[in-house]
């Protein structure tokens, strides 16, 4: 397993056509920790993490300015390869989106198949390893070849996390991964995040503040595209510096 790496974000701004969604964000995301990004809807938090693996660029008319470094390696600009960036920084989306035409097995196998299976390893072993690591193995081992759509919503989302981990990434981005799930499935996913965070740098966008408090080590608060506050999670929730953070956390708006 590769070591987790630190992310360094410098003067990051992002646009959709002429609308600026992220304003000049500076932030260091620590390796091997869970960083939560919170804020009201439309505050630019999703746009922000979609800049990190350059998914933002896939939207026509979208633009990024600034610099992002993964352990001193630049991710933006011509010196980096977008396919490589996305392999090393994988992402899980808001709605579970397993590939409907593929089986459970194939959903996990496709990433390594696209990007190359590590030498001396069989794809079957790799898939089993990932499923055990994501605690899905016992639930799906007897039906690896059945369609991924037969799984429940929560299982589908865990499958998507497994699919992202199969690439052996250095960073895992989670874009509101529980917002379409029930509380029990949410709990499963949070347990999973706690289990895997050791070897990963995890960034999770959530509009659920309790969730941020439960699972994250660091928290960043976004408001209208700006990073208002960033600190250790306990600090942000118990003793925020900025008045706006306090208002949001105590439920005065948002």
């Amino acid at each position, binding site marked *: 397993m590769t070591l987790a790496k630190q992310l360094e974000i410098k003067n990051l701004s992002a646009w959709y056509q002429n609308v600026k969604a992220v304003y000049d964000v500076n932030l260091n995301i620590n390796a091997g920790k869970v960083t939560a990004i919170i804020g009201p809807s439309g505050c630019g938090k999703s746009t922000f993490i979609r800049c990190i*693996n350059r*998914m933002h660029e*896939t939207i*026509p008319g979208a633009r990024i300015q600034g610099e992002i470094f993964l352990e001193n390696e630049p991710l933006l600009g011509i010196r980096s390869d977008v*396919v*490589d960036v*996305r*392999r090393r920084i*994988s*992402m899980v*989306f808001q*709605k579970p*989106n*397993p*590939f*409907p*035409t*593929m*089986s459970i097995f194939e959903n996990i196998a*496709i*990433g390594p198949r*696209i*990007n190359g299976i590590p030498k001396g390893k069989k794809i079957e072993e790799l898939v089993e390893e990932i499923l055990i690591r994501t605690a899905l193995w016992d639930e799906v081992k007897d039906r690896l*070849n*059945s*369609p991924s*759509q037969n799984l429940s919503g929560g299982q589908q989302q865990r499958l*998507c996390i497994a*699919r*992202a981990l199969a*690439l052996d990434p250095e960073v895992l981005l989670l874009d509101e991964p529980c917002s379409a799930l029930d509380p029990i499935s949410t709990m499963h996913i949070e347990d999973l995040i706690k289990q895997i965070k050791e070897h990963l740098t995890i960034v999770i966008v959530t509009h659920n503040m309790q969730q941020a408090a439960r699972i994250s080590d660091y928290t960043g608060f976004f408001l209208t595209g700006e990073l208002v506050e960033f600190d250790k999670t306990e600090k942000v929730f118990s003793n925020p510096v900025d008045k706006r953070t306090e208002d949001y956390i105590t439920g005065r708006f948002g």
Partner: protein
Amino acid sequence: MSKLTFRKIINFLALSLCVTFALIVMFPLFSLLGYVISKGIQVINWDFFFNLPAPAGESGGGLGNAVLGTIYMVGIAVILALPIGIMNGIYLSEFGSQKLAKAVRFLSDVFTGVPSIVVGIFVYIILVKTLRTFSAFAGGVSLAVIMIPIIIRTTEEMLRLVPNTLREASLALGATSWRTTVSVVLPSAAKGIITGIMLAVARAAGETAPLIFTALNSRYWPGELFSPTASLPVYIFTYAISPYVSWQDLAWAGAFVLISMVLLVNIFAKLVSSRFVQMRGE
């Protein structure tokens, strides 16, 4: 009358109107099918499929060459139209926000509306006049020209129905956009695309006008790519307006066979696409 009863009556009336019009649509369709089938079944026999046409006035004979010729030319058309149609559809849906794409989309829409006889004249000028012979190849090209815009538009529309979240999932795994299209988007849309291709095949199989200008007709078995070739629609046309009863009977049998072929193609398409989806999912 209370307001609620009034609303219920309106609802009932609207529903009955819809059902009535649905029945009106079905009536000509089923009467046409029924008539062709009842007329055709009376005169069809094995000779129809295995014999060449008999000379005028003689009874017996078949249209085996026309059945084979139609399959032959539709086959040529499919080979030509499939790659062009599907690649264009992919381009329009996955990569097509540029000006060129807009032009392609507009032109393929225009092409859908071009009368098939004009397609016939066009292919006549570029292939028949230059090669100095009517041919199966020219016939296949003219059918391909009719099929291509249908395949382009159905492919594009089916690909557009694939949710964007799947494309994002694939791109986020480090797949290139081509790999995303091949591994994720196309399989998800396969059912609809196959149906679209089959519709195009069915449409092309029944075309008469372009074949009169390009493949003409023949009394012999098809085979040579660059010789005049028989086809069912042209034979139906020629025999139906002939004064001989035995030929008119053959035209009915031909119409019956043509309709059956189109029907079979459609049923086959349904089977293939459902089997395809099952296999992917097992």
